[in-house]
């Protein structure tokens, strides 16, 4: 009621809104165009608390009729906002394909690297070989490759691999790294015919354990609670 009555709006919000026994709101500064609710809280605070959870709703916010009325003023807007949020923007389906057709035409090959063939002088683009190396690293449980750079090692056909990866901490890292190295050397030889001489691996990040998406409707049926 008071919200919709223009006469109820003070021309200037008081400097120190909120009640003295209301520490969470004692230091609140009114925003431009703000208004003070009859309970002493700011309209902006009531809205932020309800819409953004900032600060977390307290006993006052849940029980105060003025705060509740202020929040209810947004109900109509919220309904329309939810409906808008659910709508796909026009042209969404075709967008990713169009972007990727441009991107794939601008392929970045990187340097050319030798394959282990002493008769034919065969070479492969770094980006293509790196993709195979990353996939090889990804097959080791609990690891995901990030960067992967390749460089010729010396005069022959050997190649040096430098990789950073994210690894889960559910088993010793040296074990994981050894397995990744083995997987890379194997894939390079089998899939590419490339002689990898050294593999430098840096664990640059911790991989959080993968949680498979919960099936719909599987709420906390068992073991819920604190």
């Amino acid at each position, binding site marked *: 009621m008071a919200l919709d009555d223009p006469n109820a709006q003070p021309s200037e919000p008081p400097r120190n809104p909120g009640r003295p026994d209301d520490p969470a709101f004692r230091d609140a500064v009114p*925003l*431009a*165009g*703000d208004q003070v609710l009859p309970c002493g809280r700011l309209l*902006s605070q009531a*809205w*932020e608390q309800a*819409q*953004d959870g*900032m600060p977390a709703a307290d006993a006052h916010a849940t029980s105060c009729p003025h705060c509740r009325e202020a929040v209810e*003023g*947004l109900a*109509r*807007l919220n*309904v*329309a*906002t939810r*409906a*808008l*949020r659910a*709508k*796909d*923007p*026009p*042209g*969404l389906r*075709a*967008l*990713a394909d*169009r*972007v*990727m057709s*441009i*991107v*794939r035409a*601008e*392929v*970045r*090959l*990187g340097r050319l690297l030798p394959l282990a063939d002493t008769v034919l002088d065969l070479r492969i683009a*770094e*980006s293509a070989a*790196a*993709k195979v190396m*990353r*996939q090889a690293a*990804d*097959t080791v449980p609990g690891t*995901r*490759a*990030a*960067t*992967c*750079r390749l460089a010729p090692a010396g005069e022959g056909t050997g190649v040096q691999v430098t990789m*950073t990866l*994210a690894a889960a901490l559910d088993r010793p890292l040296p074990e994981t790294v050894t397995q990744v190295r083995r997987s890379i050397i194997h894939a390079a030889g089998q*899939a590419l015919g490339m002689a990898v001489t050294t593999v430098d691996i840096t664990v640059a*990040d911790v991989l959080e354990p*993968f949680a498979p998406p919960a099936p719909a409707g599987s709420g906390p049926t068992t073991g819920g609670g604190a």
Partner: protein
Amino acid sequence: MEQPGLTQPEGDLPDGLLAARAAEGDDDAFAVLVRRHSRPLLGLAYYMLGSPQDAEEAVQDAFVSAWRRLPEYRQAAEFRTWMYRITVNRCLNMRHRRSPPLPLDAVAEPATGDEAGSPARAAEEDAEVAALTCALREMDTGLRICWILRELQGLPYKEIAQVTRASEPTVRGRLFRARRLLKEAMAPWR
């Protein structure tokens, strides 16, 4: 040579890893990022520009620009934040280039309540969405960006501040003003 059974899908990888791969020319990793972020970015551009064609062009340009700049992208910001920033800049440039007139079909009349069934309710909802869309377009760009990022895309204040290169108090103020204006614009549908 192709052994798809051995490879794992990239769909579950975090943005940072995919961006690191894409920076080295891995277009498959970039494709995952494009699919993951297309919807919110296109939504932002659409409600910023008001025209589906302009929105598609803006987001397409933003992604292609990101692909070209990825080798220099040092992950100082989250990929999503970085991508939002490129898209916002692109939209602002396009708005300066032309100011499209409001399409008439976007302004729907409020439903007259002659039927109590769900078709009437659906029509009313369409009218409310149209009213909201219309009010959004008339709102100041700075307010509009903040409102879209918060209310349609659920970004936290801090990230909105990073995307719009404003302080968090500025973002709070803009969001409050945007909510007030939109609430008032929705009043006739009460």
